[in-house]
């Protein structure tokens, strides 16, 4: 291993160690606010890791959603649920909401007209991506079903992790909702 590769390896290892440390810390710390803040720093490091891997767009999303919004939302939830003398109240809905949200909806609908028709044979996905999969999938994966080969071979890691996420959230929801019949 030459020097550059060694340094690269060290950088990888140090970033990953930080990730593991923060993730473990968020689980192990007893204080709720502390756990939320450590989770925020975990998001920072996840974003840094993405940036280090060269996935700049994912890093940006992680920074915005994980480190910025999620931390604030978690804290907001904590402060609204912690029992205190004066319970926090939800803000009343105000008229800008009634004006702003329909405007936003109209904007989204307007933008959506730009999307290609469903099943349009001339749309970019159907002219560039689909033919490639259709031509190569049997040769690459030796699976007769194209959908299965895309899901389980071309994006197998994505599918695997997505399944894990859905499975975990299912378990969590079941644990929360499940009650013993008395």
């Amino acid at each position, binding site marked *: 291993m030459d*020097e*550059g590769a060694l*340094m*690269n390896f*060290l*950088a990888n290892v*140090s*970033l990953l160690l*930080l990730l593991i*440390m*923060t993730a473990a*810390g968020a689980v192990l*710390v007893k*204080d*709720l*606010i*502390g756990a939320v*803040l*450590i989770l*925020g*720093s975990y998001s*920072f*490091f996840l*974003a*840094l890791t993405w*940036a*280090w891997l*060269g996935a*700049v767009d994912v*890093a*940006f999303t992680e*920074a*915005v959603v994980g*480190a*910025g919004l999620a*931390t*604030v939302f978690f*804290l*907001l939830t*904590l*402060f609204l649920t*912690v029992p205190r003398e004066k319970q926090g109240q939800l803000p009343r809905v105000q008229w800008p909401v009634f004006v702003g949200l329909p405007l936003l909806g109209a904007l989204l609908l307007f933008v959506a007209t730009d999307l290609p028709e469903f099943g349009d044979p001339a749309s970019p996905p159907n002219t560039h991506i689909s033919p490639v999969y259709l031509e190569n999938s049997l040769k690459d994966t030796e699976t007769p079903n194209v959908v299965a080969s895309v899901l389980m071979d071309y994006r197998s890691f994505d599918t695997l992790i997505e399944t894990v996420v859905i499975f975990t959230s299912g378990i969590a929801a079941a644990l929360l909702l499940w009650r013993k019949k008395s």
Partner: protein
Amino acid sequence: MREFFIFVLIQLVILIVVYLYRVVQGPTVYDRVLGLNGLSTKAIILLVVIGTIYDRVGMFVDISTGYALLNLVGSIAIAKYLEHGGAA
């Protein structure tokens, strides 16, 4: 030069661990928030360093700008709630 920048990166990560100690250990909530602030400043610097390593500074600097602004919004929100929330 690339080696030097990766060296800087590893140094920064080691220093971040110290701040992390403050976030985990901190006797009060405010220590933790303060640690998070210092940490995010370092994350901004770290992003620019990574950009220099990859020779794509323009893109990474954009991220760190967004990071700095988001950090401001998040920290102000946290401070605002801690102000009349007390230690929980």
